[in-house]
């Protein structure tokens, strides 16, 4: 298996920090993946017979409430967990059979972005150190080359001037900046697939758009695939083309993100849509798409914003 790995991504070769990956991104095929956790008294089926395919360079979102199994799927794809049954195949690699050395090589190509930018960075290390590690470990770069690459990475994620950010400690950065460092770290080894687990849920709304834009842009420029895990349907809509709705470990609905959100078929998808607390989406019963939502477009003057639905923000005392 390790031979197969080397044929597609020789370890010594340095993928560019900018521009398209120099090799083809393979598809990811998840086939009948099931994961059960055995408790003392009962068995918990976290993921139940999930199958899907991610085309090279596609962006797919996995949405669902907590406990729906979305993070377990992410862990199985990154090789942190092994499926109880089923297979996960990335190109010619059978992920569910990887162990140690081959898993490490696999991580060269699949990287993860974590939810909590406050917890994902070692508070005792500078940004430069954090980003140098994967460059040296995965790419075998010399210290000097690694430093150059760190600067490239920081520029890629919009932390400019890079020289100013490199020596900073995590506590000197805002949440949005930290998350950009986490993204830069994921990009360091030039991965083909990025699994982002709720990357913006800990960030202020005002910063989310920037990070989401960055993810979309990276995907476009580098041709990498993005698996985006969230419970926030709005960000799923912005970042991805395809959506999988998970409920109790099963995929209950799938399709083109826009279609699924505009015409949800499954009751659970409807429920998720209604749970979105959002000034524009909070219209009970679901206003016809497009009609209620010309407001947020920044090119329009605010007076064009939709009239407030009286049921949206009804004063609590008046009932």
């Amino acid at each position: 298996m390790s031979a197969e790995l080397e044929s597609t991504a020789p370890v010594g070769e340095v993928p560019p920090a900018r521009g398209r990956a120099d090799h083809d991104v393979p598809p990811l095929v998840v086939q009948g993946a099931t994961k059960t956790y055995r408790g003392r008294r009962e068995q918990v089926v976290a993921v139940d017979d999930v199958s899907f395919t991610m085309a090279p360079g596609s962006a797919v979102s996995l949405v669902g409430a907590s406990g729906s199994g979305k993070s377990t799927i992410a862990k199985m794809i990154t090789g942190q967990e092994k499926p109880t049954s089923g297979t996960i195949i990335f190109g010619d690699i059978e992920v569910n059979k990887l162990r140690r050395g081959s898993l490490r090589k696999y991580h060269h190509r699949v990287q993860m972005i974590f939810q909590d930018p406050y917890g994902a960075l070692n508070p005792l290390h500078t940004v430069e150190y954090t980003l140098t590690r994967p460059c040296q470990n995965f790419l075998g770069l010399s210290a000097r080359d690694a430093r150059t690459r760190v600067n490239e990475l920081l520029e890629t994620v919009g932390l400019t001037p890079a020289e100013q950010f490199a020596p900073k400690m995590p506590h000197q950065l805002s949440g949005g900046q930290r998350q950009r460092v986490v993204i830069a770290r994921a990009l360091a080894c030039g991965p083909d697939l990025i699994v982002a687990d709720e990357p913006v849920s800990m960030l202020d709304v005002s910063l989310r758009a920037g990070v989401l834009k960055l993810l979309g842009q990276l995907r476009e420029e580098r041709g990498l695939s993005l698996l985006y895990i969230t419970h926030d349907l709005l960000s799923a809509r912005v970042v991805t083309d395809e959506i999988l709705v998970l409920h109790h470990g099963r995929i209950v609905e799938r399709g083109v993100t826009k279609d699924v959100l505009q015409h949800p078929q499954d009751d659970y998808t409807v429920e998720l849509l209604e749970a979105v607390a959002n000034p524009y989406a909070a219209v009970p019963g679901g206003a016809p798409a497009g009609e209620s939502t010309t407001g947020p477009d920044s090119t329009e003057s605010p007076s064009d914003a939709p009239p407030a639905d009286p049921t949206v923000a009804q004063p609590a005392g008046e009932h």
Partner: protein
Amino acid sequence: MSLLSAQGVNVAYVPARGQRIWSVRDVDLELEEGEFVGLVGESGCGKSTLGYALTRMLRPPARLEDGRIIFDGTDIASLTGEELRRQRRNGFALVLQSGMNALNPVRTVNNHFADILKAHAREGESHSKADMRARGAELLGKVELDVGVLDRYPHELSGGMRQRVAIALALALEPRLIVFDEPTTALDVMVQRAVMKTIRDLQREQKFTAVLISHDLGVVLESTQRVLVMYAGRIIEDQPSRDLLVGEHHPYTEALLQCYADPRAETVELSGIPGSPPDLSLPLEGCAFAPRCPLAIDISQEVVPPLAPLGRGRAACHVRAPSTVEAASNGKHRAATVAVEPGGASRVS
């Protein structure tokens, strides 16, 4: 008369070394009896600090440097010790962001209720074990939890359940004001919706005054009657919630609204707010939002805008709500900052 009236509230974080951070600056605020008010803004804008100040929960290095907080006729800003505790019994509570951190991991839910009821028992009030248990059960019922939860430890409960317990604890003394500090931020969307509904129902039923602190404008607009928008420690807009989606507002409020969209719309375009909030250790020069504001004019750079009428509410903006009394706008804050600078840093803790 309003239930709570804050005047010229200034809160600073006073580090052992270095500059003070002025987290809340010259805030004037009136809360009416039975009102549900939202307090929104980006992280670091001072909304939680203000919520803590209003309930006198500030802990060092945070310090209430200046201002009066009149709760039901008493200035609670100057109260200490036993007097403050008695005043607390009469009226105000705080629900913290994470139920996980607010509860003691080695005590059952019942113990939490008993602690509060014992600590604040009124003269002649029974606090037999059975009575307190009954009271705990009743409170859990209010937040839609099963009586069985009384004998559970916090780790045995889900995040949503813990947050409900925290709300029940806040209700225990029948407060007239409850400040909810991001009560649903750590929760799943579905659970968030359910917990917010419980808070709304309780507020409607029991008619306490509620302040909901959140960075999520969506949650706030769904629940509250009035929204206060904070930026860099100041309240920059005060509007009825239902007006927020229409008409002109403070450019910062408008920018916040543009961070949202309906995921079902034909085209979805999100815009963030470029730039970052100002350094709160420096005195304000003009409008704090001016460097990020597309509408900023010359005067925005020089004069701190006061809250002036805009629509049915007020906004602090030279462009959207020009004030006739610009001269009066340089609040206490600037003077205060200048005054404490020499040596002030090394004085405390």
